[in-house]
């Protein structure tokens, strides 16, 4: 895989963005995610009210790919419902696994489509999915908390 396909402007800019890096006030879910191969950790924080994600942010350090992926993810899910966030995470993980390839379907992922080709770099897949797997844990917890 060519570096041009990985280190695109979308990814490098998002990787350095601090927009969504803070501790969420009155967070209802704080979930830690770890990439055991490199030790990178993120803490995903959500404030969910009536099934809606009122605020979302993350803390932690990591590589450009994991940071950009988490930043784009937060952009996408903030203000959406927990159900929608779950749907988007399934779509993202489906894209990475190569199970969802239809561009029309993937349009919903907006900038997160930048990670489509990461599946050609097995060593970096874990970095791209770290935030999204953590989101799935958080969503499960949010759903449990309300049921």
């Amino acid at each position: 895989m060519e570096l041009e396909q990985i280190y695109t402007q979308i990814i490098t800019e998002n990787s350095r963005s601090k927009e969504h890096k803070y501790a969420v006030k009155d967070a209802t879910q704080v979930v830690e995610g770890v990439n055991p191969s490199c030790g990178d950790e993120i803490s995903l924080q959500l404030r969910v009210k009536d099934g809606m994600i009122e605020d979302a942010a993350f803390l932690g350090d990591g590589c450009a790919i994991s940071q950009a992926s988490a930043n784009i993810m937060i952009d996408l899910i903030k203000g959406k419902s927990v159900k929608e966030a779950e749907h988007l995470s399934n779509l993202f993980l489906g894209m990475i696994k190569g199970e969802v390839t239809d561009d029309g379907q993937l349009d919903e992922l907006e900038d997160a489509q930048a990670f489509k080709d990461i599946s050609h770099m097995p060593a970096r897949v874990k970095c791209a999915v770290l935030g999204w797997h953590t989101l799935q844990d958080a969503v499960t917890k949010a759903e449990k908390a309300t049921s």
Partner: protein
Amino acid sequence: MTDTIKTQFPLLQQKQNGKPLVYLDSGATTQRPQAVLDAVKHFYEQDNANPHRGAYELGERATAAYEGARAQVASFLNAQKEEVIFTRNATESLNLLAYSWGLHNLKAGDKVVVSILEHHSNLIPWQQVCHAVGAELIFLYTGQDGVIPDEEIEKKITKGVKLVACTHVSNVLGLVSPVEKIAARAHEVGAVMVLDCAQSAPHLKLDVQKLNVDFLAFSGHKLYAPLGIGVLWGRRELLEAMPPFLTGGDMIDSVREQDATWAPLPQKFEAGTQNAGGAVGLAAAIRWIQSIGYETIEKRENDVYRYLWDELAKMPHITLYGTPEGQHCGAVAFNVEGVHPHDVSTILDADAVCVRAGHHCAQPLLTHLGLRACCRASIAVYNTREDVDALANSLQKVRKWLGYGT
């Protein structure tokens, strides 16, 4: 320029993306010279049978090959044959020690000392055994330079310490530990001394008569030998007093329904069918190393190591860890400012330069140094100054890929 050592390694002749492969991850595993590949092939084509089990000529040849390999390792270490136990790798050797020696000799209130430099393989087994028996695990800390100060040795290795386990060479910083001082102090307080030689065996001559340690462990695959063969050496009287680690075939003297007695050394510690092909490969690797000689190896590697350190130290935006002072082998650890080590490694890979990124199985050390992760370039006897130039050239591009001006 062709290098007469490098040309003996078939794998290193390949290209990746049209560029010559620059392998700077020998600390993880080395490549194998043709002589080792040939020896393994010869064993499987001519001599393979289950060692110690076949009472026919072929079986005897397999046994002779396997026991011949043990003799080769023994003479390499200046040890007795019975004191050389074959394992899968250094990790298994250290677990054998922790579970067999540790569980039977440590009790609540005893102390075990390790250094903060340890690879997880020489840390977690001791940590777990300490948990199991209620012993205390104590660390020798380094300064920010990665060096263990003398006072630390004096202060931490005291009465009540039963075992000291320390790495000979740090797999992250490449620094040689003050083994003489640590071993002398350990013995002064009556402790057993374990040396993890995984990162030293490829670079330094090991002589168990001079090292003043009681046990040592290393992996064949970091020493130009195949994967899956390792060594534990121990003093005979200590090994004899230890119970077996794994039990089963080949390690017994006689077995009845309710109990069993153990074979003498070294079979007592070699349960099940052994990796004879790997042992033969290790013996060939040792002969290959001896044909070059440690003096030449050290001279070549020191030159490349110095050059590597100096070239990286000259570059802007690069931080080196550890210190250029003192004796080093193998590894140089560094980071590129503003770029995560994994991104560095991906970008270097596009130029066919292989370095490792991450915590290097030494998380407590990285935490101690205030790091989460770093890059590591590590060398072996086949590396040249050209490899270092390729690394330096590629490193210059890293920050640009991530959108930095310089």
